[in-house]
């Protein structure tokens, strides 16, 4: 089974996930085409973060299937490391390595995991730091950077692996309103360059602006989805309407 670009790059079919007796995902299906930006929105506790963490195998699933570029993620024979080289992830709490400078944080994975040449990696890392507008901060430690700056380093760190898909798990939720913008600008640029992005977000304005498709989840199921133009104006399900009514 070979994957071609006209098939979904990430495909979830009837995914079920429970923590003990608590069923968090109750059969979620969605397809993402290469270059697409999708946003997953919904009230807290609706399984958004769990969903996104299943895509790169940080959480296991109890049923259904998830494929990335045609490969089953939850196949015991799958090399998880190979999958994670293709799927980058950015977290709400940045999770930078505190004992490494910004530049070292970006360089570490390509050097140690991909075993790439050091001078080539450094050139690319500096370019990435410039791309996320953090020139001059290369030698700062995470503790010396603001939340927004740390989050942009985290994005650069993920990009350094040249992933095919980027997962963003509520990346602006821990930031103050002014710094949210600088992170969103970075993500928007990525989206415009054609990076496949899956975002879990509470930034409705942003979702409306950059997303090709919006999914609304509630209590472990996808209640409604559609392109932003129609999703925000023509939401038909009462749960979606209630949620949007509270947010907008």
């Amino acid at each position: 089974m070979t994957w071609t670009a006209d098939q979904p790059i990430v495909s979830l079919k009837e995914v079920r996930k429970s923590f003990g007796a608590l069923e968090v995902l109750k059969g979620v299906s969605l397809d993402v085409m290469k270059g697409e930006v999708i946003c997953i929105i919904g009230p807290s506790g609706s399984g958004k973060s769990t969903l996104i963490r299943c895509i790169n195998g940080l959480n296991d699933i109890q049923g259904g299937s998830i494929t990335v570029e045609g490969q089953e993620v939850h196949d015991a024979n799958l090399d998880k490391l190979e999958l994670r080289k293709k799927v980058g992830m950015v977290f709400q709490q940045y999770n930078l390595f505190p004992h490494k400078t910004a530049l070292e944080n970006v360089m570490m994975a390509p050097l140690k995991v991909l075993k790439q040449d050091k001078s080539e990696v450094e050139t690319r890392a500096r370019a990435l730091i410039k791309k996320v507008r953090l020139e001059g901060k290369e030698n700062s430690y995470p503790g010396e950077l603001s939340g927004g700056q740390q989050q942009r380093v985290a994005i650069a760190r993920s990009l350094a692996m040249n992933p095919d898909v980027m997962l963003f798990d509520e990346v602006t939720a821990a930031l103050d309103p002014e710094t949210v913008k600088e992170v969103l600008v970075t993500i928007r640029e990525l989206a415009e360059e054609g990076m496949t992005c899956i975002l879990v977000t509470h930034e409705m304005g942003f979702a409306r602006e950059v997303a090709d498709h919006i999914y609304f989840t509630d209590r472990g199921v996808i209640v409604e989805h559609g392109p932003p133009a129609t999703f925000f104006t023509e939401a038909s399900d009462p749960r979606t309407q209630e949620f949007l009514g509270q947010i907008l």
Partner: protein
Amino acid sequence: MRRIPGLNAPTRNMAVLKPFDVAAHSPDGYIFTRWLAAMPWWTPFAMMALIMIWPTLAYAQSRFTTGDAFDALWRWMPFLVMSGFLFNVVISMLAMAIGTVAGAALGLAQISPLKPLRMFAWFNTQLFRNSPWLVLLFIVLLALPFEITIFGQTIRIPDWMKGVFGLSLPVMANISEVVRGAVQSVPTAQWEAAESLAFTRRQILWQIILPQCYKRMLPPWMNWYAILTMATPLCSLLGIEEIITLSRQAMEAEDNHPELLVPFFGFALIMFFLYCYPIARLTMRLERKFAVKL
């Protein structure tokens, strides 16, 4: 007027409603070092003064005067320090080195993904952590042969080497706990971030988690070194010629006058204090510093 908590009584009267915070009131592993570090800098001088005065009061009428006792101590002092106390230091350093290497291995085994290895490491850690040090020393002394033959080469194991092994066992177990605790104190989010960058488990542990631990392991490691050094006189019970054994022998050579006891053992006490006190002070300083900056 009747006082009703929360209404007209001061709120501090309601403290009884809160659950007793056990963690905040139980010893935290630094109990010895904190006690030592809290002593003022003039403690050794006060000890010296006491040691000088006490025999004068106790044996004022005896023929063997305090002056004689201190003369004897003065004569033996270079020997007690160079052959005695320095040997204690050597024993403590070797036991610490062995205990650290073995303890680090045991501590990492305690967080191994392999359950049998984890259980084995946990069992050994608990066993050696909770056994009396002297019992361990005697077991090692009696269980180890006095010589071993490897490839036709006969190697003698001197008693002091057995003392080093014996002392390194409880150190190993405690360092094992220090390592396990430090690794587990790193947020799991660090593991997840590294995992999602396709690092292997081994790479994550050695390149991302452990480098964050060294700093926070240093104060407890030094704490255990001070405790170990204070425990080296246990070796005198095995006949190892460290400072206490040599002090006893020196007193015998000086006809076992009871007036000698306080000056000689007092001197040993001051030696240990002078060695361990700076370590304790530094440990507590680092502890405070790292606790704030983490």
